[in-house]
């Protein structure tokens, strides 16, 4: 365990050093976070400006959901995209061989090898939006609620990670130049809005197949003090299930890789 922690430190300090080689990226990412946030706010305002709203959520409550989305998008830019986006390249260039020959868990290596500081503004913007919007929505969460929300957000992050990893791991079968994982990112934009704003069919889809509901709506309900036990349990279950799935699929993929690569 200590070795893994030390490895993680070495991973991230070197990653930070590598990223700082490209300072212009900081500006691009910052602009991208701000631009996306502004665009999402305007879009949301288009819905609320006409007095219809979305799925029975008030303007401020919907902003909490948007905050959750921005936060998760920050996690994506910080950890998921830089690491899991590389898996395809590891397979394509054969540098996966080096990873497999390291005396350390290969899924850990591939998932934690690097981190991008440029996702941090998104993380921060998400937290600020959640706090401000929840306050204006009249929520006065007790410490235990905040803690619970943090736990649910962790579940969201794990679900997102697992889905992404599963998709990235399939590159062992379909070696390819482009990133299938970006697909996930673009599909998850559905999480910008409360899941109840969608028609019933999509709502089911976003709960069971593409668990968008667990990613943003469930934690938002929690911080607004509307969490219900079944949803919390479902979120925990979904996180465990998808994590287990990613682990199992990776093992299977490796067996295939090592019996078929040339």
């Amino acid at each position, binding site marked *: 365990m200590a070795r893994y922690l030390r*490895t993680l430190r*070495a*991973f991230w300090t*070197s990653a930070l050093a590598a990223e700082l080689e490209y300072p212009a990226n900081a500006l691009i990412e910052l602009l991208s976070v701000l631009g996306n946030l502004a665009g999402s706010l305007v879009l949301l305002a288009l819905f609320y400006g006409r007095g219809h709203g979305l799925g029975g959520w008030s303007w401020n409550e919907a902003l909490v959901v948007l905050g959750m989305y921005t936060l998760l998008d920050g996690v994506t830019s910080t950890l998921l995209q830089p690491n899991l986006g590389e898996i395809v390249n590891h397979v394509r260039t*054969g540098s996966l*061989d080096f990873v497999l*020959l390291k005396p*350390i868990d290969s899924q850990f290596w591939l998932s934690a090898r690097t981190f991008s500081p440029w996702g941090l503004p998104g993380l921060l913007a998400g937290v600020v939006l959640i706090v401000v919007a929840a306050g204006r929505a009249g929520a006065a969460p007790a410490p235990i609620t905040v803690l619970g929300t943090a736990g649910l957000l962790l579940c969201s992050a794990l679900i997102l990670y697992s889905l992404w990893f599963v998709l990235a791991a399939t590159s062992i079968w379909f070696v390819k130049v482009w990133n299938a994982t970006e697909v996930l990112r673009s599909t998850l934009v559905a999480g910008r809005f409360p899941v109840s704003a969608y028609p019933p069919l999509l709502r089911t889809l976003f709960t069971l197949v593409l668990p968008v509901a667990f990613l943003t709506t469930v934690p938002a309900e929690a911080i607004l003090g509307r969490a219900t036990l079944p949803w919390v349990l479902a979120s925990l279950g979904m996180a465990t299930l998808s994590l287990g799935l990613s682990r199992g699929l990776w093992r299977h993929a490796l067996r295939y890789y*090592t019996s078929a690569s040339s």
Partner: protein
Amino acid sequence: MSIIHARGLGKSFRVADKQPGLGGTLRHFVARRHKDIPAVRDVSFSIEPGEVVGFLGANGAGKTTTLKMLTGLIEPSAGAVAVAGFMPFRRQAAFLRTITLVMGQKQQLIWDLPPLDSLRVNAAVYGIGEAEARRRIHELAEMLELGEELRRPVRKLSLGQRMKAELLAALLHRPAVLFLDEPTLGLDVNAQARVREFLADYNRRTGATVLLTSHYMGDITALCQRVLLIHRGRLFYDGSLQELTQRLAPYREVCCDLGEVYPPQAFAGFGEIESLAGHRVRLLVSRDQLTATISRLLSTFPVLDLEVNDPPVEEIIGRLFREGAVG
């Protein structure tokens, strides 16, 4: 007690079978056909600790596949293999700490950072303490003649410097078995020589076992007492390099300076022309015909000077693969 032991090792791959052109593309789209291609068949050998063994073979002969089976990157479809007492394919941590793999055309160093950063990562991964890691880096850097290059981003290094840094990264955990796949690929003559010297030195100092493949016979002749020759997936020869050249090349090279210039046809019946330039001709003459041929040459041509040599190893191996005349 041998450190590497392979018995009846075999591997076949499934590959897609597609015809070129649009028709082939569409057919392939609708119904994919596959072929099983045996890459390695029934290969057996043992290597003792401390040996430096060269792994020879043409492109696609099965060298890399065998190397990957020995390192545990692919699972053999037949046979058994043991490296340092481990089954490679299980890739247990203890096994991985014992071996290393260097691939000339792939790199593990982080592109945008100085090698030292990658080395820190490797030290952490292999659980080497920081002081110890510094000591080892210092020692290896000295052997490799690497200095401030370790502080420059990898993308700014020359190919030779990068390869040396790759070697350093691969050896930081003091592996007992080194697998090197084309470690001098693309390097200039000087850099090649330096890498060779380092590997010989490393083997002498640490007693590590080395198995290397290379297209450059210079690597093999400089480093290996023993060679394994693989041809079309089968082990064709296992023994000393010298014996191989004698067995494969029952020829000697006869080099004559002549008083006049002759067309190539003039040498028919004397031996195979290796080169003909102006007054100088090099012929390959079989050993048992040597004296008879020399006396015929002397009586037929105005010979000014005559020399008899063993042909260069590159030439022998090259002929072997060109002709495919193995078996």
